[in-house]
């Protein structure tokens, strides 16, 4: 099963790049939905003898990260009629290069840190890489919906790291993460909706009236 887990982790990183490299907002959401599905399969691959707890985690993750949130995001872009990201602050080829550098950095950092026991050796670098890619996307994109996707990828990275503790640390951590993602995006979605109604645009770079 470790080969499967390895493949899944590689695909997770790849989906982050898909989201990072596309100008189409709907493709971006599809990438993050696929990533959610992969994240849901991971606990099953990492802990094959997991039992009800692991299955619950897997089903819950798929439901929230691959079904509910992408649908919610799709609803938001339909309401606001956005299709393309307009001129991101960092161009797409440059974004991909930075992404590759982030992945390299994540692997370099992880090789210096002692791995937590029972953890798959690729889990920690994949988690750190996903966090960095998400953070990068969140800070360099101007559309509110794409920023939310970036935040989701960041959260997915945190979740990946949390998978190293599934057996040792109680259930609460996972619930907290899922709840957090759900609520954060939910509220952001409402705000996005308001931004739309306010200026007929989802471009949060319009939000610059307050400054010193």
């Amino acid at each position: 099963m470790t080969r499967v887990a390895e493949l899944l982790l590689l695909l997770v990183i790849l989906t982050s790049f898909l989201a990072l490299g596309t100008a189409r907002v709907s493709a971006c959401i599809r990438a993050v939905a696929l990533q959610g599905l992969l994240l849901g399969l991971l606990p099953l691959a990492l802990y094959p003898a997991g039992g009800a707890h692991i299955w619950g985690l897997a089903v819950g993750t798929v439901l929230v990260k691959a079904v509910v949130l992408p649908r919610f995001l799709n609803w938001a872009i339909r309401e606001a009629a956005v299709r393309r990201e307009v001129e991101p602050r960092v161009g797409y080829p440059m974004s991909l290069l930075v992404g590759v550098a982030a992945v390299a950095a994540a692997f370099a950092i992880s090789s210096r840190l002692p791995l937590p026991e029972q953890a798959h050796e690729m889990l920690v670098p994949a988690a750190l890489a996903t966090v960095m890619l998400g953070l990068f996307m969140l800070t360099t994109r101007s559309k509110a919906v794409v920023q939310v996707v970036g935040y989701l990828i960041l959260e997915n990275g945190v979740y990946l790291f949390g998978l190293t503790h599934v057996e040792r640390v109680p259930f609460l951590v996972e619930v907290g993460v899922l709840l957090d993602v759900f609520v954060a995006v939910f509220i952001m979605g409402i705000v996005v909706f308001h931004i739309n109604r306010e200026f007929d645009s989802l471009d949060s770079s319009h939000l610059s009236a307050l400054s010193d």
Partner: protein
Amino acid sequence: MLLLALILVPAVAALGASALRGPARRTPWLLLGAMTHLALVAAVAITPPRPVFHGWIALDALGLVVLATVSALFAAVAVYAVGYLRRAHSPGGRAFVGCLLAFLAAASLVALSHHFALLWVGLEATTLALAPLIFHKHDRRSLEAVWKYLVISSVGIALALLGVFFLATAQAGGPPGARPLVVEDLIAYADRLHPAWLQAAFVFLLIGFGTKMGLAPMHTWKPDTYGEAPSLVGALMAGGLTSCAFLGLARVTAVATAAGSGPFIRPLLLGFGVLSLVVAAAFLIVQTDVKRLLAYSSVEHMGLLAVGLGVGGVGAYGAVLHMINNAMVKGLLFFAVGNAVLRAGTGAPAALSGALRRAPASGFLLLVGLFAVTGSPPFGPFLSEFAILGALFHAGHYWIAAIMLALFAVIFVGLAARILEVVHGPPSPSAPGVGEDPWRLAAPAVLAIAVLTLGVFIPGPLFRALAEAAGTLGGGAP
């Protein structure tokens, strides 16, 4: 059971508030919830209850100080709200009282959590509970404020969660009996925490909790949010939310200190603290909007808290005491400024000039707040800032102490110039708003008395609690 009641009573009250129809019923409900909570805090302060849920929920001196501070500030907010809602339309509409009570429940959870993940959940909930209250005017500016607040806070909180996971990883080599992420067990087996993971955890938690506190350079949401939020929400953010985030930072500082990582974390805390003071002073000087001014003042005081934690010794005592003082003073200032805004009928900086000339009581309270917040004797912040400065000298950080003293002077000038203009400046010709209200004066007056009392003498039980709290942070009382 009392411990759970502290969290559940405001949570249930928040649900109940949404069922009530009409603001005339919701305001007394808010007051009732606040006072019940304050009474419960008094009860647990007198007879400390036993921990529940395997020690996940417990009450120690540090938690009690934060809990009592937030509860007292919240009671003042509830009193102020009675007068405020008579005159202004309810921020957040129907959800207003519910959101406030939900914040109180989440803040209580933070204060009582001895489990890092639970503490994190509480902090997340405090962030969300206040978000609808910032977006109360439904215009472009408050929209921008709430968007910045949510994006920056949620990134901070996500990185903090990663820090919590790192902390769990650091603990992986501990004895099998140790409860994961429980503060007591982390400290008891601190020598078996893995140093590299612990330090990584500290950095992420410092960034995450520091974002919520508003330490520079993660403070950028603060001026916009405080500037746009209604005054009483600003009071709760500057006094309550920051105290909760400070508690999180203090808890991880306690763990790292016990594990012998002091030499690693102290420069970080001092660095972020001094940077916050510098940034606050630089922006205070050029600021014209009073509420944004208070936001930068808050950045300054958060910097002081970080410096106090970082220097240790008496500084830890000073930091905990300063957290109480900061909460009381920020409540006082935001209430007085709120009265000025109501008086002027608008929050626009030009219109606020001389707004309190015809409202001498609020004007006097604002002046008291000005002297208290700048650390002038005989008010509480003078003592706590003095303790932190003393600790810096004692530890040999003469340069930091000297820089801080210079920045205090700059900050005093920046704050005084603008606040004196509101109190004594030439009145602007704008249409006069509403007059004074006993409820809106009682809340800041009580806080002013509290700040003055803390500056004159510290009651015995409070001193013992402060000394014990400082002890858990690796410091001690003077």
